């Protein structure tokens, strides 16, 4: 029984349930309806970014620039559509234009990442790390480190109403899932992650596939920027500044391999849920930021240990 659970791809989901059940008596209000709503709405943007990250990790790449994409997209969109001095202040087009700008910035940065990585054969880690530094700096420089308020209510609705945000996140995740499991591009993403040489010789347009994965990842970060900006009602260059490890952590805890070729969107959903549960429960216990980080580090390490034990077990059987 234990062995079967360990081998199951629902292991992380089971861990979520166990964690929830064991924390509920200690953290007051953890199981309340209101808190469950909080958990859900906190999950949604993370799920959207992690979806894109999953695609990139499957190709054996990594995208560290996603948090800077969120920041830059958030402030650029907000600068254009805010009611104080935005170019489209008060216009009926403000909301669609804001969404478009945020997605376009995400897609463009993804495209840039992809082109540099494939064109100059650079390691994705370096390209996206320097991208992160540049674009997050750029976002702060643009706004002189100030947040932008007074955004159109119809724009804010997207992030504020959990059902709307939920529908958006669901759409992104389902699209990602279908892309991976049912389309040619999905097959190619795995093949490139497994072995790019074999993929190239088998007729896979490896560079195009890689570029597309970074574009998709950037677009997802753009969608997340829309949700986050709406939920927090501000465009800010420091949105999600310290969330990079949550994004990659959630994806990897779910079981997607950093070495490429192995990963599923469902796993990422579980990873996101797990990380959000931990965050939320620790907040309820009103631990300090630092103790929260310590506990989180420990729990993530424990989950990773369990996962590697599981893989050894499965390797032994197979």
């Amino acid at each position, binding site marked *: 029984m234990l062995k079967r659970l360990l081998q199951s791809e629902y292991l992380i989901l089971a861990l979520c349930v166990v964690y929830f059940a064991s924390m509920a008596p200690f953290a007051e209000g953890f199981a309340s309806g209101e808190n469950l709503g909080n958990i859900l709405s906190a999950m949604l943007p993370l799920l959207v970014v992690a979806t894109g990250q999953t695609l990139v990790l499957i190709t054996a790449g990594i995208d560290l620039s996603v948090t800077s994409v969120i920041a830059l997209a958030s402030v650029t969109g907000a600068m254009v559509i805010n009611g104080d001095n935005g170019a489209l202040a008060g216009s009926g087009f403000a909301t669609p234009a804001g969404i478009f700008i945020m997605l376009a910035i995400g897609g463009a940065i993804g495209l840039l990442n992809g082109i540099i990585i494939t064109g100059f054969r650079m390691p994705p880690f370096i390209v996206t790390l320097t991208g992160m530094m540049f674009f997050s700096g750029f976002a702060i420089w643009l706004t002189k480190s100030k947040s932008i308020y007074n955004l159109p209510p119809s724009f804010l609705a997207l992030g504020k109403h959990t059902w709307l945000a939920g529908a958006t996140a669901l759409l992104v995740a389902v699209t990602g899932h279908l892309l991976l499991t049912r389309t040619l591009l999905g*097959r190619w993403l795995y093949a490139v992650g497994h072995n790019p040489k074999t993929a190239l*010789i088998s007729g896979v347009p490896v560079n195009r596939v890689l570029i597309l994965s970074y574009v998709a990842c950037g677009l997802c970060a753009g969608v997340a920027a829309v949700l986050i900006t709406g939920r927090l009602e501000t465009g800010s260059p420091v949105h999600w500044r310290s969330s990079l490890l949550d994004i990659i952590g959630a994806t990897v805890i779910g079981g997607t391999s950093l070495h490429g070729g192995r990963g599923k969107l469902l796993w990422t959903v579980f990873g996101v849920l797990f990380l959000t549960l931990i965050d939320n429960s620790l907040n309820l216990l009103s631990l300090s930021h630092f103790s929260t980080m310590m506990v989180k580090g420990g729990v993530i390490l424990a989950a990773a240990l369990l996962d590697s034990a599981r893989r050894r077990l499965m390797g032994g059987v197979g």
Partner: protein
Amino acid sequence: MNTALNFSGISKSFFGVKVLKGVSFAVPTGRTVGLVGENGAGKSTLMNILGGNLQPDAGCLSLNGRPYAPRSPHEAAAAGIAFIHQELNLFTNLSIAENLFLTSFPTRAGLIQNGSIRSRTVELLKEAGLDLDPDTLVERLSAGERQLVEIAKALSIEPRVIILDEPTTSLTARETEHLFALLGRLRERGIAMIYISHALNDVLRLCDDIVVLRDGEVVGSGARAEFTADRIISLMVGREISQLFPKRETKPREQEILQVAGVSQPGIVKDVTFALRRGEVLGISGLMGSGRTELARILFGLDPMMRGTIRLEGESIETQPPMQRVTRGLAFLTESRRDEGLCMEASIADNLSLASAPRQARGLLGWLDGSAIAKAVAHIREAVTLTASARSEQPVKSLSGGNQQKVVLGKWLLNEPKVFILDEPTRGIDVGAKFEVYTLINQLAERGAGVLIISSEIEELIGLCDRILVMSRGEVRDEVRCEAFDRERILKAALHDGYSHFTAEKGGRGE
């Protein structure tokens, strides 16, 4: 005659399957025993027991008359058992000296004694017949030199028994000669050796005794004089293979399907011109480094070419990327199936359907029809006679070498290639699987495809091809039709001035 190593009644099972069934034989001091058998006959399990990676379920080993039961590779090395593997275990980013002493750096007060490492390395390299600077990085050595460094490494533990597993697969003819001369000297020093290889001619030439394994049992053993290649093969497969090469039913057709004209790339290939007809099997012979593999890579669009044209069915393809050439019907089985032929961690089904996946994609979104793919996979598995015991979801790395090669073949056959380029298609696979690969090549030609085979085994080309091109130093030196196939003529053309160049380059070292 003293016995250096004795196997007695060794048995081993995995998951209830008996892999070794009471294997007994002896390796006398100063003699070389050739261990042959098909893939899966139990050779590697036996060697893993000898090397301390596995423990036998029953039976025992003895070394120089004393019981020997290693619990780890470290214990095996301490007892004087040295392994030289098919896949070389050297760290290419380290120097020769560092590789030799990696596990046992001589130290004083915790610091590595670089001086004594250097002098000891020079000694060992000399014994192995290499005249190289100990500080040379391994990545700068040729395959043959690396093999000799491996042997120097084996000598560093002062071995009683050396086990060589397919040591010649990546060596040129000349490097092989060099290796055999060295092995002869080691034998004279009283070192016992076990030589594992599919190259039966090498085994017959080199070994004093031969042991044939089949399905975990010794089915034949004795002095070399008692064996011929045919007898070994029939013992290995348990039946007489009357013909090593299956007959093809059809003759090449008139229509030329691939036309290569004046293909040149400085320093790689020079002015290569030939045509391949539908239904024809065309061989390319030549030494390693003659430009044969490089030519194949250029034809497939993996490497650049400066001049020349390549036409597939009359259409120019030389500017197209590999993807478009695949769509047009080109297929390429490379010499390295692990690195370039397969996604080792991915499933059999995913590997089989990789090249033909675009055919199954519908619409702008590239929607895949899962059931059609599954059907195609099931069909092609049967066509390439993949082992029935493997599930399609199983990772490819769990298959034997021969079955892995069938997956690569199946992957391309699913795409119904018009021209199939195969580079060393039978390297490292056993006799039975070879025959099946040949059969598949013939079937493809019978259906009207053009086949281009590159091989180091001249017999293989003679047995399969309608025509053989012989390459040397990047040029086609000779063209031989099947009526006139002649081993000597092919070898001569292959060595034509390439030979003197080769000896000039490699000679002087360790002769």
